[in-house]
């Protein structure tokens, strides 16, 4: 209680208002054109974002404009809850409506592999790569989001999706490093700029889709389709990522904000 008394939330609010704390939007705009994950066509598909005008100051509603929208839980910039994956299906409080809301605010480390990804869309994050990062920036603190900066969000949609004859070619983590993040670094979750948290060819790993398998199996979270990760420091940003409170939801589109100390960029 004593510690709590020392927290000055008004000072925090003033710092946000003055720009001493910068608020950075890590969210892609929900639009009809933004790529949605592609599965084999005989499987169930995630619905893309769609919008139907209800009225626009017209005979359908003379003084107001509004839309009905439809989308999947995993459309656009979105949050993955542990219940999304079979490995996390039996965990307590594993859906977006039951996760402790305090978990929606957490610090982040940003691992920059944008140069490597520019050279190779099949760049796979490994433990040695992260160890080198830690040698420069210090160890990843427990309960931090690990955000993978690939600059993938800057690609045009064709390269962004990276689809070829043999599936998607986009960067992502190897199985070993995901397991290591969870077991050795107790991370809060894993976030990417790509359509999913996993490597584009992640179905060929063992286990397939390791970011989903290990993160959700240990009750950790996922964020994908992030943007503006290049505006974040390697350490010290606070992430606000609160999914919609969907009953037994497996995930949710959301607005992801980062708080960064310090004035102008």
């Amino acid at each position, binding site marked *: 209680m004593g510690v709590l008394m020392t927290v000055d939330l008004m000072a925090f609010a003033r710092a946000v208002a003055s720009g001493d704390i910068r608020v950075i939007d890590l969210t892609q705009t929900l639009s*009809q054109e933004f790529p949605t994950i592609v599965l084999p066509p005989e499987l169930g598909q995630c619905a893309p974002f769609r*919008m139907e005008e209800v009225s626009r100051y017209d005979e359908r509603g003379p003084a107001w404009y509004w839309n009905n929208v439809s989308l999947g839980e995993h459309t656009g910039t979105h949050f993955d809850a542990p219940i999304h994956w079979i490995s996390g299906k039996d965990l307590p409080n594993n859906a977006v409506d039951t996760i402790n809301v305090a978990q929606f605010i957490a610090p982040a480390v940003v691992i920059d592999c944008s140069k490597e990804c520019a050279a190779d869309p099949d760049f796979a994050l490994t433990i040695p790569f992260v160890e080198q990062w830690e040698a420069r920036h210090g160890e990843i603190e427990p309960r931090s989001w690990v955000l993978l900066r690939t600059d993938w969000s800057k690609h*045009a*949609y*064709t390269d962004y999706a990276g*689809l070829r004859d043999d599936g998607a070619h986009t960067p992502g983590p190897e199985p070993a490093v995901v397991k290591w993040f969870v077991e050795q670094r107790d991370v809060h979750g894993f976030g990417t700029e790509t359509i999913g948290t996993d490597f584009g060819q992640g179905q060929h790993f063992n286990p397939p889709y390791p970011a989903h398998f290990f993160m959700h199996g240990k009750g950790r979270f996922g964020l994908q389709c992030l943007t503006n990760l290049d505006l974040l420091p390697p350490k010290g940003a606070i992430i606000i990522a609160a999914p919609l409170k969907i009953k037994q939801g497996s995930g949710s589109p959301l607005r992801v904000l980062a708080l960064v100390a310090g004035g102008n960029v």
Partner: protein
Amino acid sequence: MTEPLVRPRRKNPLKRTRLPLRPQGVRSRAAHGLTAAAAEGRFALQVCLDCNTVIYPPRDACPSCLSARLPFRDVARGGTLVAETTVRTTTDPYFRERTPWRVGTVKLDAGPVVVAHLHGDAVEGGRVRLELKLDKSGSAVAIALPEKDTENMADDRYLREMTCDPKFRRVLITDGRTTVGQAMAQAFSDAGAAIVFVGLADPWKPFPGMAGLRKIERVEIVPLDVTDSESVTELAEQNGARIDIVVNTAEHVRAGGVVDRHGLTIAREEIDVRYLGLLRLAQAFGPILRSRGADGVNSAAAFVNLLSVHALMNWPAYGSYSATEAACLSAAQCMRAELRPGGVKVVNVFFGPLETEWFQTVPPPKVTLAVLANAVVRALQHGLEDVFVGDVAEDIRQRLAVNPKALEREMAN
């Protein structure tokens, strides 16, 4: 021979667009037997079951024996053009804009004398073949064509009032990602369409036919996703006035019934792509097509629906799909009534299983895509409204006409 049509000059954007008019279109109930025949490209007249008299115009009683048993039967279309005249002035607003207009009397080999519109190459005293066509009002009329095909005969201005020939028209194929769409683009290019717009959704998603599609002459790829209202509206706003024929090739074929399916995700997709997709296209393109029904040589002409013949009778193996197709058929009937004031035809093309991956497990006969595409082009060239392509479609139609209940049971097996 007919003077060949020349590609219309670019339209002066400052010129007023002439509003479409229609010839008188009221018909008796009996006369709609001609409408049905014209819609399918058949030549059928009433034939008395009691005295075999072939009857024209349609009547409720046989003029020879007063029998009321007068079904429409396909009869020989040959005859002689006995007399012709040219209408040079009229109070009818539609024909006033189109005089001089030739009409004549044709003595059919089958018996009756028919008053008919005349193709430019039909000669007085000469042999002709009579065809039933739907005019701009959607009603059946007879037109006498020369007995044998003449050069450029499809370009005849009288005939072209009754057809939707793609030649020099600008076509929109709504989905080029489907193999149906690719076959359609090729067929319309071959048929002399001035521009073949081909819609493409999610351009970031590669597909095998892309390179081939781009190689087709006069194809222009345009962004279009029939599941996205904004995308459909944007294309109509940008290019709607340059599109004369819409061919909706968006498809969503999945096996599975109504009971024997797990959840509604696929059904929603079916309805979104097919039924709501049709509605989006209808709302975006319908009004502008209707307003351009008399806009010169490349006037707006047709909206083509590709429909499973199982829109007419459910096929439980593809039961949910069939139900969606039935909804599309119903919407198409409504569209017909709504677009008729512009003289724009809504063409329904029915077919059984296609030679595509989604009918992989279905045994032949299946309709190949080239056959389907050519049938669509031919239907437009001939001004048809209802087209059945392939053996399965024809078989279903016939069995449905004879005994719908039997067909319902048979489809379950």
